[in-house]
């Protein structure tokens, strides 16, 4: 058959589309292959009733009726209705990839709490009290030589006498002009009819305020396409809308935050093509107008870049998502190089750009902490890129170096566990086992008995060895510890299939979805379940539509491609 390929779910370009799998095997060029599904037409009217008890009852949400669901919708959708108290402390997320916090956590907690609640309340960033050191640290970036020359000129010219060359300007504009419709809603209308689809409460861009708070509201409630539309409105208002590409424009931290939001959401929705085009004018954000020094009249002697670090990283990674990981790799290595230069300045007691001396030891510690954290994040992206390229040696090398820097047994262990899986991908079972043992060793310092992660890694090693029964046993032990863990249930189902127990595999996945619809209605899990449905029987449509109904009930507009996910044709 054709080249091997995984579906577009993870953008592996060398793979044939998922939906074609069964068809492909049956419709090869030679006519000796026939797709045989034949049902007795006399029993067709019974199709809908084939699995009545199983399906309908199992898909009813255990608590909370449809009405109460409708009531809450306009404000916070279920899919991401996370109560504030459940939200993690913002620092914890990046701490998992950066160094441990070294300063007293008290101060941190307070500021983070403030930020968090402000973010939750939709307060814009400029309302926060300005901490100059923090601002410098966060915005720091080194201009390249060319930009440096222009920036010096801008700074030394008397007020109003600096006219930059066109080459010095970043001139973005919208490419994706049409308004994106709610994709789930569209599919629901097509397959379930207006009446069923209508029960879905839809928040549209018009129902939220047309500002950053509204944008966050759309993100929080999972109306991602509406969020993309709103960024288009806001960017157009800021003079960077459709048709503005290649024209001079005024950049502010706000416009760049809008671009960040837009790009991040487009990436999640896998709108790669327009995203690449819209990101193109920004290049590597190296143009002088991306720096505060370019605008001495507005920002005084503030220095650093207007570009949020997350945007820089996202755009560097972008080619990797569009099938060009080599290009992403070059860009990421360039990012890492600049960060390492800034870190070396910081370590010698200077500011990131090396122009001034750091005021306090505290500032130095905080700055080094921030930038080593960002360096680690870039390293992770480089590893991801290497994995996409199947350059497992490089990925392994970087992960091992990160492991040497890891400061806690927890981090060391997490990296050993990742290394174990990396080598499984490469088929190097011996190395995978060695890292699994390292991970166990580190785990001993944290808790005496294996936990979910360890059991799962053990199960994955067994799968690599082709021992599905043993793998299954390990996954079941993991499930004993966390009965609601969706990933564990999914892996159990996969094992069951390889053990020849298709029906049980399907039952496990359906149960996982029913017990936690919000997490269980996961794209990849749905792909697995629909793959099993298609293997089981020719009459899968009703089951897939049931899943679609559940998606409508529990999910907003977060899934890039609903049809592909449910293998609906």
């Amino acid at each position, binding site marked *: 058959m054709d080249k091997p390929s995984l579906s577009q*779910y993870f953008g592996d370009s060398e793979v*044939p589309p998922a939906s074609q799998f069964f068809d492909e*095997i049956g419709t090869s060029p030679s006519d000796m*292959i026939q797709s045989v*599904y034949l049902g007795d037409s006399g029993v067709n009217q019974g199709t809908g009733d084939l699995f009545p008890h199983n399906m309908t009852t199992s898909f009813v949400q255990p608590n909370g009726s449809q009405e109460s669901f409708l009531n809450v919708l306009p404000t916070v959708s279920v899919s991401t209705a996370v109560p504030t108290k459940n939200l993690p402390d913002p620092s914890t997320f990046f701490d998992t990839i950066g160094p441990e916090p070294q300063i007293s956590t008290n101060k941190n907690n307070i500021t983070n709490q403030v*930020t968090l609640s402000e973010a939750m309340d939709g307060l814009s960033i400029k309302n926060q009290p300005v901490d100059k050191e923090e601002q410098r640290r966060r915005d720091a970036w080194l201009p390249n030589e060319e930009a440096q020359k222009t920036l010096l000129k801008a700074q030394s010219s008397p007020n109003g006498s600096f006219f930059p060359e066109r080459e010095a300007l970043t001139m973005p504009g919208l490419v994706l002009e049409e308004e994106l419709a709610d994709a789930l809603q569209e599919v629901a209308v097509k397959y379930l009819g207006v009446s069923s689809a209508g029960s879905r409460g839809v928040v549209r861009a018009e129902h939220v305020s047309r500002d950053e708070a509204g944008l966050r509201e759309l993100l929080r409630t999972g109306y991602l396409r509406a969020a993309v539309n709103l960024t288009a409105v806001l960017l157009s208002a800021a003079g960077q809308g459709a048709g503005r590409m290649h024209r001079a424009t005024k950049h502010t931290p706000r416009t760049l935050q809008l671009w960040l939001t837009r790009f991040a959401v487009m990436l999640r929705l896998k709108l790669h093509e327009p995203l690449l085009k819209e990101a193109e004018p920004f290049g590597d954000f190296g143009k002088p107008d991306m720096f505060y020094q370019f605008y001495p009249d507005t920002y005084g002697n503030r220095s650093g870049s207007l570009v949020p670090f*997350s945007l820089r990283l996202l755009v560097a990674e972008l080619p990797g998502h569009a099938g060009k990981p080599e290009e992403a790799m070059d860009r990421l290595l360039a990012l890492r190089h600049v960060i390492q230069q800034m870190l070396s300045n910081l370590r010698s007691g200077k500011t990131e750009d090396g122009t001034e001396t750091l005021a306090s030891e505290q500032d130095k510690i905080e700055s080094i902490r921030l930038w080593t954290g960002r360096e680690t994040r870039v390293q992770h992206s480089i590893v991801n890129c290497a*994995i996409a390229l199947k350059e497992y040696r490089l990925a392994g090398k970087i992960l091992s170096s990160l492991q040497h820097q890891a400061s806690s047994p927890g981090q060391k262990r997490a990296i050993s566990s990742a290394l174990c899986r990396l080598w499984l991908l490469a088929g190097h079972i011996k*190395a995978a086992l060695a890292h699994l043992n390292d991970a166990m060793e580190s785990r001993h310092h944290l808790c005496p008995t294996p936990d979910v992660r360890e059991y799962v890694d053990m199960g994955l090693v067994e799968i690599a060895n082709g021992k599905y029964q043993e793998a299954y046993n390990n996954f079941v032990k993991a499930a004993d510890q966390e009965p609601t863990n969706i990933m564990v249930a999914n892996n159990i189902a996969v094992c069951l299939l390889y053990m020849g127990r298709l029906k049980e595999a399907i039952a496990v996945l359906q149960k996982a979805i029913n017990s936690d619809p919000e997490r269980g209605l996961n794209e990849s899990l749905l792909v697995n379940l629909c793959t099993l449905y298609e293997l089981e029987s020719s009459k899968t449509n009703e089951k897939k539509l049931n899943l679609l109904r559940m998606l409508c009930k529990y999910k907003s507009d977060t899934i890039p491609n609903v049809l592909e996910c449910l293998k609906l044709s």
Partner: protein
Amino acid sequence: MNKMDTKEAVEHLVALKVMRLTKPALISPKIVTCDSKDLPGNILNNYLKDDAVSVTQMETLAAGQFLLLPQSFGNIYLGETFSCYVCVHNETNQPVQSVSIKADLQTNSQRIPLTTQQSQSPMMLDVDETLSDVIHHEVKDLGTHILVCEVTYMSYYSTLASFRKFFKFEVMKPLDVKTKFYNAESDDVYLEAQVQNITTGPITLEQVSLESSQQFTVKSLNEIEEGQSVFGDITLLQPQESCQYLYCLTPKENISKDIKLLAAAKNIGKFDIVWRSNLGEKGRLQTSQLQRMTTEYGDVRLTYEMLPNKVTVDEPFDFKCKIMNASERTLNLFMKLRSLQDSSLLWCGISNRKLGPLEPGKFIYVNLTALPINTGLHSISGLSLVDLFLKRTYDYDYLASVYVS
């Protein structure tokens, strides 16, 4: 057999589905993160954290734990195992009697039955029930393979009905093994083997071993002390990359004693290679018996032994010369030693020495002494053997060198 048997459009009571079970994939979510002070705050970070596919505390690394079922047929290579899920489903709202599956694999040369006994014995399928089987087959042929699945069941008219489905796939070559032989003076044979990955993805060579033939014992030269591979921890080959292995094969004593047997010992042995690819997908290949080119020894085989590597100028040194009769007749030899004009090594001792008759396959040792008169690397030359019966002269120049310091 290449066409489906039932030409008329019969609608069957059961449906047959087939899925190739390659290893599942380990997948990761779309990793999109922001600083908490960015416009989206932690909202996108929380998406990532809450994603069932992400690994807790390692959300930003794409080395996931979540298994995804194969979504395409993929490639298949010689030496891998073809695994397949075969499933028959009752598509009606009544039980179907006497359902059975039979699966065969047709290659260019043979037809191999794959189904287990269990699924071949007819059974009743209740409403919505399935009859399934997981079949495995280690692929031993290249080229086109056709999986033929036949389902038989009892129709409503109490007659047996059946239909067949065909699935075609190509088996490709995974590795290219190139070999080179060196026959050493000492009768050892050195074998250099380049194993090249010609699949489309990276593979890990789990085991590469040379099983020697009856005539030789093998020593692998690919490890440093304590069994550590010279390739380090990682024998990962990207597509088109090769790994080079070196082996030393020593003829067994009974062979090395007999120059005839030695010349006839052409079979060296065969390679046994085990590799793994995506998530441990395993393949195993054995090469056919490797053949070396044996050296032609002529009538007489002369080798030097106990020759020092390094000697001091102006100090005579001793070594031995082994002369073996490789011909079919008795030789009557005498040895000439001539110090050539430009030679830096001068022979000491008697020239034109008679060595006496030498039977076929027998050998004698002669002690020799030479005096180096110049420093540098010099070859031993000027030795000739004359067969008195046939008046034939054999010259031996440049057979060995010594370093004079």
